[in-house]
């Protein structure tokens, strides 16, 4: 590092974290898409052209508007029960995002707390928590979630609980490693030499440095949560088949793939785009936050 400084001019402060984030295209694109999705979820009743539950067997298996035989008003066609695919896909956003936010939030909370405790206090806390993580990771996650929901009973709460119970380990492992990493740096020693208590150092010094990694992890976890919810809906363990979920729609579409492919493809695309957006946002956050914090 060339350092011929007598006091140099300080480069202009780059401003709030937000402005840094906006320079990362992945964050802007994926974040924008997800913000749009959130609006869709919130205003689904206003946006959906039809009632997602309304059946009309006379209008069953109608193709999307641009194909021959389409009925006006059913932009993406209907399923075999005559329910509007577009409306159901729009309503499906609600379940997907609810699960994504709560499941990722709760697993982040639990995993981060345990990860910080293990990484910072070490000793017995670390041994117990790390062994628990090892045991958890030995189970195949999808199978475990199916098993959990079967035990807890189906429904949204069980799905969220199952995801949290399985996925806190992702946060715990990474946060523990990052905490140990940060704890070895001189600024932590310096804080000890000021007479800060261990607790103060943990929350004031270490947590802010773990935050960028945590932000990226949460975003990735949201993508995973959406997939797991879809899997559980697909196997019929999430919500009753009436309720519009992407996983449920995919299951339904799979059975009538030869009569109406759109019933399968529309929720599949929604799922794909959402998970891709969460993953890209996560990767983007990691890149955007890192050089600022760590250079």
């Amino acid at each position: 590092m060339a350092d011929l400084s007598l006091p140099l001019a300080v480069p202009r402060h780059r401003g709030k974290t937000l402005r840094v984030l906006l320079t990362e295209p992945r964050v802007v694109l994926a974040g924008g898409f997800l913000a749009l999705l959130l609006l869709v979820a919130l205003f689904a009743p206003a946006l959906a052209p039809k009632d997602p539950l309304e059946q009309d067997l006379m209008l069953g298996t109608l193709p999307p508007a641009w194909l021959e035989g389409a009925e006006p008003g059913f932009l993406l066609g209907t399923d075999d029960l005559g329910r509007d695919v577009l409306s159901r896909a729009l309503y499906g956003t609600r379940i997907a995002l609810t699960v994504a936010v709560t499941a990722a939030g709760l697993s982040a909370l639990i995993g981060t707390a345990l990860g910080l405790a293990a990484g910072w206090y070490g000793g017995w806390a670390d041994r117990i928590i790390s062994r628990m993580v090892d045991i958890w990771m030995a189970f195949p996650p999808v199978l475990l979630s199916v098993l959990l929901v079967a035990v807890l009973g189906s429904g949204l709460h069980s799905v969220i609980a199952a995801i949290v119970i399985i996925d806190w380990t992702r946060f715990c492992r990474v946060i523990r490693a990052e905490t140990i990493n940060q704890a070895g740096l001189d600024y932590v020693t310096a804080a000890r030499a000021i007479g800060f208590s261990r607790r103060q150092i943990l929350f004031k010094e270490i947590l802010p440095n773990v935050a960028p990694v945590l932000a990226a992890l949460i975003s990735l976890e949201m993508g995973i949560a959406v997939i797991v919810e879809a899997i559980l809906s697909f196997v019929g363990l999430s919500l009753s088949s009436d309720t519009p979920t992407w996983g449920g729609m995919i299951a339904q579409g799979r059975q009538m793939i030869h009569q109406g492919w759109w019933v399968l493809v529309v929720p599949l695309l929604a799922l794909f785009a959402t998970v891709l957006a969460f993953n890209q946002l996560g990767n983007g956050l990691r890149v955007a936050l890192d050089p600022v914090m760590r250079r």
Partner: protein
Amino acid sequence: MSQPLLSIEALSAISTRDGGQPVLRDVDLTLKRGEVRGLVGESGAGKSTVAKAVLGILPSTVKLTGGWVRFEGQDLMQMKRAAFSALLGRDITLIPQDPQTALNPARSIEAQLTDGLRLKLGLSRTAARARALELMDEVQIRDPARVLAAYPHQLSGGMRQRILIAAAFAPEPKLVVADEPTTALDVTVQKEILRLIRRMQEAHGTAVIFVTHDLGVVAKICDSVTLLYAGKVIEDGPTARLLNALRHAYTRALLSAGPRYDRPDAGLEPVPEAVFAQLRAEIGLSQSNSEGPRS
């Protein structure tokens, strides 16, 4: 005022890793108020260990086995944790070694510079800020308001070290422990930083323990020197006397081992093996152990 500020008596420590290897052997050291003491030795000689013992931040791999560290007559080892924490950062502060990692990358300079002032002196946010601006002026930082708002990665190494010096002198401590504060810096910056520490020390009447492996640094700023080898004090006395009439063959050899700016073509003179052998015999080390224990 005849009582020394700091007196270390017969301090001994072992490493918990290498089968109980001694790290410090009966180290004695007394420090008067306002005195600058150089603590010199090769890597692993135990100089940092002494400094860390004073600050109570020994790594878990080093265990004290005996001796006293008295600060103004109080035994630091026997003190209650809370009382010791209160003392740290107020009466005894640290200038860390590496300015790259000694500042928390996630917090602004203002937050870190005012930590000690607010926590230890109970200053309000505005009072602490005013004091911080004063201090930054004292350590010759131009445009202090802007630097306060900056984050560590936006500053040069020299600037960061100035900030750390300002932070160390901020609460008007009685003793500053400087742990090789110039080793991580560019040679051109080193001299300025040395002068700065000396000037701050004189202006505030602070005693300084200056840990270094560079006898040149000692000659520049220390009033007295303690030279360690393999955890044992082998020279101790006023700088002028020590450098002019070197008692010990090792010290002489160490001095001539450094590069000479007036004879750049001359090769470096390693410390002769015979000198090490003599040292080891004096300390009572076995012959096979050619290096001092690592701290």
